[in-house]
């Protein structure tokens, strides 16, 4: 490394700062070798149509192509596939959210080659069937992710349907990993993962019996995407999340939902409706006491019907202060509650009116004037709330970044206090979106885990994917910069 530094210093002094700076800055736009993050690029995910077609055409006409379906029910569950051309290595593909809102966001196909799993089932197929699987994977690169419909197991189902292999599905209703796992295990040729480390594979021994993978073949852990570990995949995860957070639910909400069947209608905005091809989705939630015992597309006899905008639902999930976001959403009409009992409806209307009066008289504590700054507490933790310009900042003093929030306290993105200062002193007229990022710096990636642990993994995976995409096309990789020969900085994805 020292030699590199010395070489760079000589290079730098001889050629002059400006020239070297230009060269360095443009190194990132040179066609890079087909590697990113230590892995070879994938023509299925990263190639353009021509590259993909070339890859497909070069696949052997005959031989044993293999498609495997995997279910993971450890913690946040997941369903994914692994495929292998004749003589090739298995490559795993999974689908997940590429944003904060698990109820409606951009989807992303991630590398699940080393993802943990509980059960799998494999099929040998011909080239045509294999190519159909590849095409489905490519199609799903641009799908919208919704927990309630197009989730991780729905992707597995789509591959199964497209290829026509007789594989098990993720169950009736909303696809879910638990059902996929159960259905896989029902098949005679399924394989159960008996490894201690569930990311390891099972291999056949000389007698044809499935045994844990020997340690020398262990390729696990290193490249496991955080997406797969952290994102919500199905209503099962949502159920677990709600039950874990039940202690934080205020008494007034608890009494409303106790032993009730709730039908939540998730309403899309106009742009989302055009993409989704429907106005809304529903989730039926059954409470026993205050614990969720079931979430599916609907419930038989709903006691309460809740209509809510998808962004409002996401905001409630993401914020550190969900009651403020909930009350403001209710006051604004973004959340509407209808009870099966008329008397309850009158009470709800009265409470709604009082809530709105309260919201008008005493607005959210996060609605502050430009230039104002004050100390606040959320859950007994001190924060600094400020509004240096257009944006409202919520900063935990111990962190190097600030969360950009709206006046309901719902996070919008992240920035650094320095960035906010730069906008303030700039004479160029920045727009409100300026300087707000979902994922500013690697340090922030690590620290920005919110209470539901949704964004970190998604963003890492997305950026890694972007990096590979740009590199594949021989263009600037936004994540890969060679900094003067001194080091290799891979901004995102690490």
């Amino acid at each position, binding site marked *: 490394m020292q030699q590199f530094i010395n070489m760079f210093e000589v290079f730098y002094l001889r050629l002059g700062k*400006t*020239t070297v*700076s*230009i060269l*360095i*800055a*443009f190194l*990132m*736009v040179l066609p890079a070798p087909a590697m990113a993050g230590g892995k070879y690029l994938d023509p299925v995910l990263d190639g353009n149509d021509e590259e993909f077609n070339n890859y497909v055409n070069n696949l052997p006409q005959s031989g044993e192509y293999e498609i495997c379906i995997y279910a993971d029910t450890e913690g946040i569950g997941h369903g994914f596939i692994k495929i292998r051309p004749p003589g090739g290595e298995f490559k795993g593909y999974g689908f997940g959210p590429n944003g904060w809102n698990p109820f409606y966001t951009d989807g992303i196909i991630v590398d699940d080659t080393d993802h943990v799993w509980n059960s799998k089932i494999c099929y040998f197929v011909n080239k045509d069937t294999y190519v159909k699987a590849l095409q489905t994977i490519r199609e799903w690169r641009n799908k919208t992710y919704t927990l309630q419909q197009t989730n991780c197991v729905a992707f597995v189902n789509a591959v199964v349907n497209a290829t026509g292999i007789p594989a098990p599905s993720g169950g009736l209703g909303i696809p879910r990993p638990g059902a996929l796992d159960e259905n896989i295990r029902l098949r005679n040729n399924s394989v159960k993962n008996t490894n201690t480390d569930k990311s390891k594979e099972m291999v056949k021994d000389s007698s044809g019996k499935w045994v844990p993978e020997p340690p020398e073949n262990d390729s696990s852990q290193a490249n496991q995407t955080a997406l797969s570990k952290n994102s919500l995949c199905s209503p099962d995860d949502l159920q677990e999340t709600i039950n874990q957070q039940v202690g934080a639910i205020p008494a007034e909400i608890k009494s409303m939902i106790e032993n009730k069947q709730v039908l939540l209608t998730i309403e899309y905005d106009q742009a989302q409706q055009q993409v989704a091809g429907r106005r809304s989705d529903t989730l039926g939630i059954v409470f026993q006491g205050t614990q969720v015992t079931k979430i599916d597309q609907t419930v038989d006899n709903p006691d309460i019907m809740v209509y809510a905008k998808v962004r409002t639902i996401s905001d409630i999930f993401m914020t550190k202060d969900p009651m403020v976001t909930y009350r*403001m959403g209710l*006051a*604004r009409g973004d959340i509407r509650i209808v009870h099966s009992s008329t008397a309850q409806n009158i009470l709800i209307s009265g409470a709604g*009116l009082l809530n*709105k*009066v309260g*919201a*008008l008289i005493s*607005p959210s504590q*996060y*609605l502050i004037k430009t230039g104002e700054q004050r100390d606040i507490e959320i859950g007994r933790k001190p924060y600094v709330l400020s509004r240096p310009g*257009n*944006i*409202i900042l919520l900063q935990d003093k111990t962190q190097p970044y600030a969360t*950009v929030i*709206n*006046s309901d306290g719902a996070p*919008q*993105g992240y920035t*650094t206090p*320095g*960035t906010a200062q*730069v*906008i303030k*002193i*700039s*004479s*160029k007229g*920045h*727009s*409100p*979106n*300026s*300087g*707000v*990022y979902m994922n*500013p*710096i*690697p340090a922030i990636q690590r620290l920005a885990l919110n209470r539901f642990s949704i964004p970190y993994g998604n963003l890492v995976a997305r*950026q890694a994917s*972007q990096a590979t995409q740009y590199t594949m096309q021989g*263009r*600037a990789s*936004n*994540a*890969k*910069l060679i*900094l003067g020969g001194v080091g290799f*900085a*891979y*901004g995102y994805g690490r």
Partner: protein
Amino acid sequence: MTAETNTQAGGKKGIPKWAKILAGFFAIILLAFIVVSLIPVPLEGNINVDPRNEQIYSALAANNITDAAIDVTTDRVLVSATVPGDIDATKVKYIVFGAASQIRNPPPIIIVEVFDQDRKLIETSNIGISTVQKYLTGDIGLDELEKSIKRV
């Protein structure tokens, strides 16, 4: 006359005073409900993060330039950045040029404001994105690229 008076008196007796008060009370409640429903509850600070901003920011962040506001609109890419102590303004500028020229649907102009650690303006420059792209494809050389940079 007497009968008419009696009818009027009887009519008045038909709606007791307490009922009128109650009706008035409900009318006021209803009116208040309608009025309150019509008053919007303020919501400020909603932001739609532009992934193109983040794409350019990632190039800067990877070089430890973390105090940087990226603002991509239809007209221009505007970058206001504070340079860390170990990097010169020229390098920041070229990283921005390179990254901004690669975003999806790039606007025609890149404007870069570079500030020092004390937030004093070092330089403001702009360049056409097509010029940067020409440099990247080898259609123009470094000299021409440098000449195309306008310092404001």
